[in-house]
């Protein structure tokens, strides 16, 4: 892993880069952990009216602290509406939700995700993981899917052990052919090395910006599939002091997320 400026750690950089992908005045179903830290940072900086929804049913809460569960009390404080999970999912299905923000155990070049099992086979897996949870639904139905994941060959693989959650499946038009709503799909992948997007034609993952100090060769070395690169290829903007202060003092004072680096 490349060396970084001591002013911030990798988790802080990822959260900051992720926060900048979320727009003001848009709706987003957010998972716990880094996605939520990013959404909270976005709300406290450039996107004060980013509307957060939680798959268990909370709509537009006033977040005071990082929840530990997408259903817990901290997702419900000051909410505009307390709904059900089905109602949140149905809003996504109706096309009202702009973003979702997920993690996963493996990702491939088309942004497909595995969170079901690693190794062995499905009936007797080496490592059984949670399965889809809401990921398959949210990535099928929300307009833009963001993914946040550590960047190495364990995570960025040429072939998933299991396709839990749809990215672009097998490439252009494959989502539509399968029956998924047109115009949806993976939008950004925020990793420990770079910010990635997807080539509009081939639907394959490509680096949109390298994190400070990272070279294209670093990315290639840590990726299990043939990564593409945008041209020109900027460097990710570093976290500002203000962003870091908010992240450390207001969002994650217990260092649950940013302390993992």
């Amino acid at each position, binding site marked *: 892993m490349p060396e970084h400026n001591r002013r911030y750690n990798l988790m802080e950089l990822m959260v900051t880069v992720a926060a900048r992908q979320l727009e003001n005045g848009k709706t987003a179903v957010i998972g716990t952990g880094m996605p939520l830290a990013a959404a909270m940072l976005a709300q406290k900086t450039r996107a004060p009216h980013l509307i957060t929804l939680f798959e268990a049913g909370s709509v537009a809460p006033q977040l005071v602290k990082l929840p*530990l*569960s997408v259903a817990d009390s901290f997702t*419900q404080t000051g909410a505009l509406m307390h709904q059900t999970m089905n109602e949140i999912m149905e809003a996504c299905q109706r096309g009202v939700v702009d973003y979702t923000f997920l993690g996963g155990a493996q990702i491939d070049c088309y942004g497909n995700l595995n969170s079901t099992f690693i190794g062995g086979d499905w009936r007797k897996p080496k490592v059984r993981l949670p399965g*889809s949870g809401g990921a398959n639904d949210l990535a099928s139905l929300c307009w833009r899917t963001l993914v946040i994941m550590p960047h190495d060959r364990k995570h960025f693989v040429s072939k998933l052990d299991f396709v839990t959650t749809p990215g672009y*499946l097998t490439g252009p038009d494959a989502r539509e052919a399968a029956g998924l709503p047109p115009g949806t799909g993976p939008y950004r992948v925020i990793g420990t090395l770079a910010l990635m997007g997807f080539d509009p034609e081939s639907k394959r993952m490509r680096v949109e910006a390298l994190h400070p100090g990272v070279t294209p060769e670093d990315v290639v070395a840590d990726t299990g599939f043939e990564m593409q690169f945008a041209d020109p290829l900027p460097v990710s903007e570093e976290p500002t002091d203000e962003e870091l202060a908010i992240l450390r003092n207001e969002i994650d004072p217990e260092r649950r997320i940013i302390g993992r680096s």
Partner: protein
Amino acid sequence: MEIERTEPASIDPVGELFSSPDVDAARAFFAAKPRTLTSKLMTVAEAVDRFIHDGDYLASGGFGGVRIATAVLHEVVRRRRTHLGFAGHTATHDFQILAAGRCFDRCDAAYIVGLELRGLSPCARRYMESGEVRVAEWSNATLGWRFKAAAMGVPFLPVRTLLGTGTFEKSAAKRIRCPFTGLTLAAVPALFPDVGIIHVHRADIYGNAQVDGIGIADWDLARASKRLILTTERIVSTGEIRAEPSKTLVPYWLVDAVCHVPYGSFPGNMPYEYYSDEAHLAEWMEAGKTQAALDRFLDKYIHGPREFAEYLELAGGEKRLAELREMEPLRR
């Protein structure tokens, strides 16, 4: 570099259907279910004894570690119920408890094994990796919509998720075509659990029950379930229910048992009441790492106590519960 393409899941699903979506059989069951106004107040032991049998298909309300009917889950383990089916819908600590007891042998998996930010449950992983549990894959929405189909009394609902994935392939959904638009949709079959268990904020002795905060899947789960066991923080008068009719989750005629269990979601969070006990959940996760440690842990916390109040005492008692109330951001 050679590119190996992820294969599309173009074949039809092969996952097992663990319960029948026969709406007419469900209608016949519901027709015969008594709707008389009688007290259903009973102990958790009695409720499990009467309404949860070996082989039943079980669904647990709340969200894994939030508003769960822990006392019922413990009793199921204590009584060593086996061969259950389980709806692994938003299942976290509830799943871990039943996995520790090896109570189920088939599972509709939407979210299992993990405890969200807290990581994976070692004992749940071990059980699921043993090959002893038959699994069908779903997602939170599709398993939720399966409850909804049952609650609506229709044998399936058309949905736009799952399609194209391995999750679809290992589910028991079917691919259908919309008769109006020609769109390809997934059809998900109604799921009527034999028993649903839900922890609520308040209920009267007849089963009229109310919940505060988000609903998760409980509205549909309660209606989909053939038998319904409620645990409740408080027993209230029917008048209190009638004073706030928009808060009612279920009317009494859907309910089979009402069990008064204060702190019944412990160590889970109960919104508006108390927050989750992260230290106790960490103790659970740690104990699950070896079967020997898990056995000792279960003996201490589940098999030892005669009832839930004893477990609460062992897990920190009033002092700890007061701390958890203090940590709850929605407390009144």
